[in-house]
Structures are given as C-alpha cells and as structure tokens.
C-alpha cells in the first residue's frame, strides 16, 4: 500500500496557516460532549492534555509515574530550539526548517517540519508566560546558546535543566486544568492495550500499578504521547521504566510502526563502568560548545593520565574531520566518529570505550567560574557518577542510545492509520527523519502538544458524533481478558531467571548487532537469536509476586516481553533499508572516508510496518517522501 501523509500542497510558507483554516471546528458548547484519552504526560502529553482541557474537551490523562511531573522529558538538559533570531545571526523559520530536514538526512516530510519550525517561536512565548525561568542576559533579554548541526545560536535554555523547566511549565498548566475539572488525572496506570471498535480507536485497557486491577476507559479519541523505545538496547539514557509497551499494543491492534531502525545514539554520555550498570547517563550536548573532543594520537598513550599527554599528541578528531562544524557536528556523526577512534584502539577508560571531552581551553579563555555557571550541574553529576573532577581532568564520554526518531506512523494531523488514534511527540515518527538535531525534541513535544493537536483533533472530532464513555462494547471486555491472560501466563512460567536478566541479554544483542554499525550478517544473526532468547524467556522467566498487587517485577516482565516482540521489527527495518542515513548506519553503504552513503533512488520513503500476527512477517507499506523546497543533497558538515 502507498501511504498518504495528507501533506498540504502549495507554497510551504502558507501550508500550515491554510490547512488550519480549512480544518473543521468543534463549536465551543459541543466540545464538552467529547472525551479524549491522553496516555503519557511528558512535554507532548502534558501540554496537549492541558490545552485540550482548556479548550473545553473532557480529558482523561494517564501516566505510569506517581505524578505527571516526572515524565522523562524532565531529563533533557541542554535546551529548546526556536527561530526567534534574537541574536540576529541569520536565523529564520526557513533556516530552522532547512537545518532540521538536512539534520534528519532528508528522511522527514517537508510540511511537518515546516510547521514545527513555524510554531517554534510560539513555544518560547508560551513558556515564558508560564513562568519558565529561561536564562537571561544582564539587560533582561533571553539568552541563547549553540547546538549541534546549526551555525546559528537558536537554543533557549534554563541552566542544564531545560527539559525539567519546560515539563514543569506543562505540568503547571495541566495542574490548573485538573483543578478546573476539565482533566481527570490517572497516575500509576500502565496502558496495556488499545481498544478498537469497528475499526476506530475507542479506548484503552490499563493496569492500575497500585492495586493490580485491570481497568477499561472509553473515549472519542485516544492520544498516545508515550515516548521512545530505545530501552530496547537495555543500556540507554532513558528512564528505567520507559518502554515500547503502549506503542506496541497500538501496533498489534493495527497501527503502523514507521522507521523503527532510526535510533539516535548520543555522543556525550558517561561510559559504562561495569556489568551491573542499570542505565547510562547523558551529559548535555551543550557541553560541546565549550568542550573539545579528543583521543590520543598514539595507542600507547591511552593508559596515561590525559593531562600528561602533550598537545601535539592529541587528535581533536572532530575539528580535524569537520572543520566548519568542529565539535558541534551533529549527533550521529559525532557518535560514529567516537566509535571509529575506539575501534582504532585509541579509546580511553575502562575497556577503551571512551573519548575525552576537554574544557581546559575554555577554562583558560573564559575562566572556570563562567564554565561553572553554564554547566555546573553537569560537572557535579559527572563527579558523582565517576568520582572525577571535570574541571581538572577531561571528562570521558561515549555514545549511548538516547532517542527514537522512528515511531508510530501518523499523517499531517498526527493521526495514525487507525481513525481516532493520535500519536504525539517522540512516540510518532514525523519530523526528525533519520537523525534528530539537539534541542529539537523539546521543540517537537511542545509543538505537537500546544500548537498542533488542539487544531487537528478538532478536525477529526467534528466529523464524528460523540460515542460517550461507556465501556459496554464487547471489545473492552475482550481486551481486558486478553491482558489478564497474558499476565497470568507470565506469572505461571515460574522459571529460574529474572526479567532484568533477559532484558540485559536482549539489549546486548541489539547493541552489538544493531547499534552504531549494522551489517546484513549482524542483522540476520539477530533475527535468528532474538526469537531464540524470546522463547527461553517465555519458558524460563521468573516473575515474583502476584498480579493483584503492587508488583514491579511483573511490570518489568511485561515490558520485556513487548521489547522481545518489538526488537525483530527494528532489526527487519534496518535490514530492509539498504542505505546509511542519519542514525542508521549500514557498514555496506559508506563512502571511502567512512561517511554515510544514502540511496535516494531506492529508499527515499518512510517505511511503515503492519503487524500481521504472532510469528508472522510484518508487511511493509511505503510513504514516498517528496522534496519540493529543499534540494536532496549529500549531507556534509565538513
């Protein structure tokens, strides 16, 4: 099937304004007759729930955490992009649009990216009105910093806690609506299944994580703002409880999963220190504004104290390879470059899997106090984890899985191929193509939540009669029964190994064979090994406790099971995509200098996969990507 993304046609500069005007409206007094389910309360879900509640819809919002303030958006550090051009350094909506398309290696839809760039400015205004304490200069104006993949300063920030402050802004707006009674908040709920009635998304099945009860909720539309899936690699920068579960449930009910092989490996994370490690911690990319990345030129220097290695024996490889972007090369490029150095046995730290991020030049230039003001909390965090002082000794960093550009397929309205199912933020696939630029995730989450879904969902709701919130249709009970049966199966295996053990093993397979470098052989090996490990899991997992209580082991087992089912889809997508682009690097497809080699003739499309049943091969649907405004070109940062 050739998919239609419903992209507006005509001049791109007017595309969103015109489309918005053409959308049907729901009369204010009719809005209260519609109910919307929002799963996830991060930047996208929190902002959307608040905005939709304020418009007058009834909203039921769900999160697995104990409070909507804790979604993993909170961990974003560096900043949020907007095309304000306050520094007058040549920025514009068009440039942000261009940078994002190019940064995504020409694998995103032009119209969606244009809209994102256009509303980026509204986001900053909105957040300031909410009382988000963005950094200011001494004259009282907003301050900006630079981020990877851009040659202008367009990133707004709140110390190293921008994600936290933006999320708390959305959370405060959400809290206001909860108080006003327009949003009903359900915390400690995990969405286990999507309920589809007559081909339309009508509700969800949840597990109450406190009591263990299986609950059904019905509405007129369901929105998933449930984040990304890179915990499939086990060691990632995601929150421990982030999972593919909600998205996978929707996929199994018919929603197409698009470009799952596009995963972002972030270059500046703290390297792994041992087997027991439960997660990796990211250090904001903003550090690359002032930090210089290097490894020793000579292999024999790798064991030395970095401060004993003289300047001429250091290889500042990003500055060498990419002179115009230098240390601010985009993430995929910086990550692969780090891997190359380590593969060349010039890595540092445990296992030789690390490179230096050195602040000494900047400290000499602007002083340690200035560096502390900019990144103090990051240096503190680094010291807590590694017991090393980043002011005195270069930090050690290594790439780690960080973000999923792929996600559920959506059209321009953010609606999936299932009518009534909308997908927002990281959970969808829409704007980042094959690689996301720094400070663009926060922008997308808030754009979708504040400024896109409030319009587009109205267009859908205006076309249907309210269904009401009754869970009488038999599909609700059927879904709940299936969830209970799946839980009982897990509890009754009574095997020998823990869910964590299996998640770690699955992650190892994914990282080794489908991580920063992917080959036909490694991917095919995974297609064989993952199902074997999955079978072992199903026969040997040990889930302590019962289903009718607070049970974190059961939560972990359920999520692990979904990752086992999802992993092969990611691998299959990577195998299908016989090209290298953005975060997806097939070793067979590279130029002589090791740069990614795209194949526009055969792969200039979004790959949307349809679930065909357990142990059946998924079916590939293609959405061709058209570039009418930006010329398809080799992506160069040299």
């Amino acid at each position: 099937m050739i998919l239609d993304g419903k992209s507006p046609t005509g001049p791109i500069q007017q595309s969103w304004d015109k489309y918005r005007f053409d959308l049907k409206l729901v009369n204010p007094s009719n809005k209260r007759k519609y109910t919307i389910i929002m799963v996830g309360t991060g930047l996208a879900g929190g902002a959307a729930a608040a905005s939709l509640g304020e418009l007058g819809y009834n909203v039921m919002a769900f999160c697995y955490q104990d409070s909507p303030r804790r979604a993993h958006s909170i961990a974003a550090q560096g900043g949020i992009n907007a095309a304000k051009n306050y520094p007058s350094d040549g920025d514009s909506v068009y440039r942000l649009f261009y940078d994002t398309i190019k940064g995504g290696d020409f694998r995103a839809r032009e119209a969606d990216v244009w809209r994102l760039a256009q509303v980026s400015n509204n986001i900053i205004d909105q957040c300031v009105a909410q009382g988000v304490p963005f950094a200011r200069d001494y004259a009282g104006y907003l301050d900006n910093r630079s981020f990877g993949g851009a040659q202008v300063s367009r990133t707004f920030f709140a110390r190293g806690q921008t994600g936290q402050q933006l999320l708390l802004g959305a959370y405060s707006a959400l809290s206001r609506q909860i108080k006003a009674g327009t949003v009903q908040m359900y915390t400690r709920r995990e969405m286990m299944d999507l309920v589809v009635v007559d081909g339309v998304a009508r509700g969800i099945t949840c597990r109450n994580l406190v009591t263990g009860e299986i609950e059904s909720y019905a509405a007129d539309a369901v929105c998933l703002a449930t984040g990304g899936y890179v915990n499939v690699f086990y060691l990632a920068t995601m929150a421990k409880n982030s999972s593919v579960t909600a998205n996978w449930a929707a996929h199994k009910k018919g929603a197409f999963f698009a470009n799952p092989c596009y995963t972002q490996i972030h270059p500046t994370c703290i390297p792994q220190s041992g087997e027991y490690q439960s997660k990796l911690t990211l250090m904001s990319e903003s550090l690359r504004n002032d930090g210089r990345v290097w490894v020793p030129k000579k292999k024999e220097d790798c064991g030395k104290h970095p401060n004993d290695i003289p300047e001429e024996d250091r290889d500042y490889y990003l500055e060498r390879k990419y002179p115009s972007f230098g240390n601010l090369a985009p993430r995929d490029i910086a990550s692969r470059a780090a891997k190359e150095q380590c593969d060349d046995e010039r890595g540092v730290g445990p296992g030789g899997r690390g490179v230096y991020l050195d602040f000494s030049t900047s400290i000499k230039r602007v002083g340690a106090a200035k560096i502390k003001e900019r990144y103090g909390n990051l240096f503190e965090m680094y010291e807590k984890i590694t017991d090393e002082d980043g002011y005195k000794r270069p930090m050690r960093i290594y790439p780690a899985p960080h973000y999923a550009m792929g996600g559920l397929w959506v059209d321009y309205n953010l609606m999936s191929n299932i009518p009534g199912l909308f997908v927002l933020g990281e959970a969808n696939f829409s704007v980042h193509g094959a690689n996301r630029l720094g400070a663009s995730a926060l922008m997308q989450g808030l754009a979708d939540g504040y400024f896109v879904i409030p319009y587009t969902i109205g267009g859908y709701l205006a076309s249907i009669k309210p269904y009401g919130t009754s869970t009488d249709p038999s599909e609700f009970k059927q879904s709940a029964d299936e969830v209970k049966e799946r839980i009982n199966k897990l509890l009754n295996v009574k095997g020998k190994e823990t869910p964590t053990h299996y998640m770690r093993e699955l992650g190892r397979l994914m990282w080794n064979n489908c991580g920063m470098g992917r080959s036909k052989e490694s991917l095919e090996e995974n297609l064989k090994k993952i199902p074997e490990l999955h079978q072992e899991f199903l026969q040997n997992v040990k889930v302590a406790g019962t289903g009718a209580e607070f049970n974190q082991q059961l939560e972990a087992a359920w999520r692990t099971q979904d990752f086992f089912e999802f992993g092969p889809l990611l691998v299959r997508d990577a195998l299908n995509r016989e090209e290298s682009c953005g975060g997806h690097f097939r070793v067979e497809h590279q130029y002589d200098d090791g740069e990614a080699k795209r194949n526009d003739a055969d792969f200039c499309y979004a790959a949307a996969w349809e679930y065909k049943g357990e142990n059946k091969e998924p079916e590939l649907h293609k959405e061709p990507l058209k570039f009418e405004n930006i010329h398809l070109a080799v992506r160069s940062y040299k």
Partner: protein
Amino acid sequence: MSDHKTMTINLVVWRQKNANDTGKFENYTVKGITGHHSFLEMLDVLNEDLIHAGKEPVNFDHDCREGICGMCSQVINGMAHGGQERTTVCQLHMRKFKDGDTIYVEPWRARAFPLLKDLVVDRSALDRIIQAGGYTSCHTGGVPDANSTLIPKPAADESMDAAECIGCGACVAGCPNGAAMLFTGAKVSQFAVLPQGRPEAKQRVLNMVQAMKDNNFGNCTNHYECQAACPKGINVKFIARMNREYFKAQF
C-alpha cells in the same frame, strides 16, 4: 578508577505489604558491590538475589536514575536520600560506604504520604498543592512575545534557583513536623519574583498554604532539616519569602 575490591553490605530494609500491614525491618546481606554501583544498583543486586532465592524483592520508586525526575525516595541511615549533599538516592554511590557497613533503608515517613508498599509512598498531596495555585493562568496561545517583558538577570536566576525543586518530598520526610514549606515556598517564590507571576501572587500563596493544611502537612519550626535533605539545594530563604508573600496577601 577501576574498583577491583568489592564490598559486602548488610542491609536492614523496611518491608510492608500494603497500607494496612504493620510492616517490619528485615535483614539482608549483599555481596560483590563496587564503589561504582549506585545505591539503587546495589538494591537491584539485592533484588536479583532475593528472586533467585524465591523471596519477594523489595519495591522502591525509581525512574530516570539521573537525579532529576524526583521518583526515588528512601531514608538511608535516618537521612532522606542518604545524607550526601545535594544528592538523590539514585546518584548516591556505594563508594560513600565501607565494606561491612550496616545500612538502614526506610520509606519517606510523613502523615501526608501514605505508604503503598515497602519503600513506596503516595506523594499525590504534593500535586494537590500545585493544583491549588502553582501556575500562571495563561492560556495556550495568545501570549506576548517572550522578549516583550524584560526580566532582570538576578530575578531570572533567583526564580530558577527556586524552580530547581524536583518534587521528591525529601523536605517533608526530613522535617520533624512533616511540613511541605520548602516545597511550597519554592513554587510560590519562583512566580513571586517574576513579573508574569505577580498578578495572581496573593491568591496563589493563600490557596497553596491552605492546600498544605488540607493535605495533612505540618508547620515550620525552623529546623532547616528540609534544606539539608534537599537534593537540589533549595534554600530556606524561599520559606521566608513565602511567609512574606503570605503576610502581604492579608492586606
């Protein structure tokens, strides 16, 4: 850097099935811990051991494991988050302990935080304080340009100092009165120092203070335990600012 030496740690952990159970301390021993294990990774090791031994693992809240989500919440050796300055449990590393140490692990204990299981408590009372007024009532869209109101850098910085609160509840757990004054004071102050927050300042502080009372939080008697326990170093001056805002709101 590489810690080849490993530690054996004795743990005394609070176990409680649910809110109705009386609960008790249980003793465990966990081996093979290095200085690079975080406190939560040490508990992961304990749980893997317990599951292999056919016992119930310990439930504890955690999520981001990088000190920002505010989910983790344990009293360690009598101190909320374990007593390392400006540190959440997930960022506390085992290098702060010695081989053979005995460590007591308990949940947040406060009247406003009913216990759910083991080390997990219900902190929704903090959400209700925010719902009472922790926002500016701006609408989505229809707001002025971000640079149209200049905000002096010191005010923006002070607002940010207050806004760093992660809502973990350590201040409440650390307070002998179970007060949420630091939590509420920080949110009141974040808005009080910004021009966007001034129009609703009076009603905000009155409503949020009332919500503290309604949700079973105690009052402040100037112990400063909250500031000592706070993983983000929120200063008690924000309590003073809240009091000042509260008095101003009377007139």
